[in-house]
């Protein structure tokens, strides 16, 4: 178990079923303040399902407590308002709207609560991703894959999340851009954002994370400090084989 004092996110025995098929069974995990925690595992292991259930997009059984409060039934709007953010695998951008509108909508909850520092946040996002500043008038649909991912992350950051959940941020991106994204993940932690990272690029994920869970067929198969898992022979065999050695270079 990830031993942390008053964890930001604590999930206990979370199960999700699609009809009769159980996609996630009794998964438990914790993310501490300022930690980067990663969940790795093969395709179809239930990683995306896990994140969707935590934020309440999917119905689930089990306990999710975030920032010291137990959610009987996680509801997206409530959790987003309390500082949980998700960058989904599909990005889910507002494709016909401009980059800047996308970002501003990311801060919608704060706007509703009359937060006066939205413009400052917008500037921070632009300084993190200068590319978005260049393209701020363009429609989101016209961006390249990497820029879209930056926009998706930037949009989520506009809500000033306490915990940011990233679903496969490197999926479909060119190696150099992947490296850029991982650099930014490390940088975000420096700004006090905790991160729950779901990745297929296990080597890069283990390198950046503090603690890691391995999810297989809907269950937590292994867990431990990331550095320790990275040297575990079972993990090396399954996820860090010679074939994936180039991933290490991308993570550096």
């Amino acid at each position: 178990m990830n031993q942390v004092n008053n964890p930001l996110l604590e999930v206990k025995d979370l199960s999700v079923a699609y009809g009769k098929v159980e996609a996630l069974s009794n998964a438990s995990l914790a993310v501490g303040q300022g930690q980067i925690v990663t969940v790795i595992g093969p395709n179809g292991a239930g990683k995306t399902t896990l994140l969707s259930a935590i934020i309440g997009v999917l119905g689930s059984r089990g306990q999710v407590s975030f920032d010291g409060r137990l959610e009987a039934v996680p509801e997206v709007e409530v959790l987003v308002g309390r500082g949980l953010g998700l960058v989904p695998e599909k990005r889910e951008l507002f494709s016909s709207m401009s980059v800047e509108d996308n970002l501003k909508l990311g801060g919608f909850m704060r706007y509703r609560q009359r937060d006066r520092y939205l413009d400052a946040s917008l500037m921070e996002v632009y300084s993190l991703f200068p590319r978005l500043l260049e393209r701020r008038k363009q429609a989101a649909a016209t961006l390249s894959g990497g820029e879209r991912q930056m926009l998706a992350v930037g949009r989520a950051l506009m809500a000033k999340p306490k915990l940011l959940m990233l679903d496969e941020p490197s999926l479909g991106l060119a190696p150099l851009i992947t490296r850029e994204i991982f650099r930014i993940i490390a940088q975000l932690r420096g700004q006090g954002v905790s991160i729950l990272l779901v990745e297929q690029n296990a080597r890069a994920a283990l390198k950046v994370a503090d603690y890691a869970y391995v999810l297989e067929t809907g269950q937590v198969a292994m867990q431990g400090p990331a550095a320790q898992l990275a040297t575990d022979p079972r993990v090396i065999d399954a996820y860090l084989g010679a074939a994936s050695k180039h991933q290490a270079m991308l993570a550096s």
Partner: protein
Amino acid sequence: MNLQIALLLGQDGVTNGAIYALLALSILLVFTVTRILLIPQGEFVTYGALTMATIQAGEPTPLAWLLLALTVTECALDVLARYRAGRGLRVDRGMLGKLAWCAALVISVYHLPLASLPVAAQALLTLCLVVPLGPRLYRLFFQPIAGATPLVLLIVSIAVHVAMVGVGLLLFGPEGARTTPFSQAGLELGPVTLNSQTLWVLALSLVLIIALFLFFGRSLYGKALQATAVNRNGARLMGISPELAGKATFAMAAFIGCLSGILIAPITTLYFDSGFIISLKGFVGAIIGGLVSYPLAALGALAVGLVEAFSMFWASNYKEVIVFTLIIPFLLWRSLRSHHVEEDA
């Protein structure tokens, strides 16, 4: 046909066209945000017009009781839903506010000297009564099935329409109603005198269209509604609740419908069941805009108004036939050149 007749018909056409344009925009707005084809749009028009007429006759309108009943049901359902979600039995401030609002309306329709109020106050009271119906209808009939297919939503929409026509008969009776114009003055323009009500219709429609344009183009709330239409999941993850978006669009639809009703009540006699044909014409406009483009829909609706006015002159028996035949070439054209686009990932 001489110039004077053409101008008169044109005035008629543009007046009706402006109303159809408002309804077309409203139908489009509701459809893009919620995927519901709002058949009861016309009922907001008749409810608005008939409520205004009842108020001008100085009678307390029973609509206030309907609103109260719907609100009580909604609050009860909300409390129940919250209890089931494990958050205990709690009545929050929003609910109390809604109930207080309805109670205040019931009291005011019985105790205010309705007939002697200035027209603006009567119109305001009508709006206060009719607009909240929009979000109530969404909450009670559409929110529970928000995830259903557009076909199911359409069927429910038709059911709501039929029910509202029936309730309209109960509330307002079978007689038609016409209200007094906002002002008596006219405007001389060459050979024709422009009816003052026409000017009111045109001015207020224009103001409303510009307001809608600014709301969606500039304000973050407008953009949030637009975002719900573009990508529902994305919007949810930003904390933009689809329920809130649905209620907001229904409130806007009710507002637009009710205002249109108040505006045209002095020009045409409306009955409890007149709403459907009016909103259908707005719908033709919306179809011309392909259910996506706001300016095209508004222009289309304006064209519908003009075609209607001129066909009334040339072939008055076939007026409706001609108007609704308009839709066929556009449907053909749309079906030929549209191609299905996957939702962007």
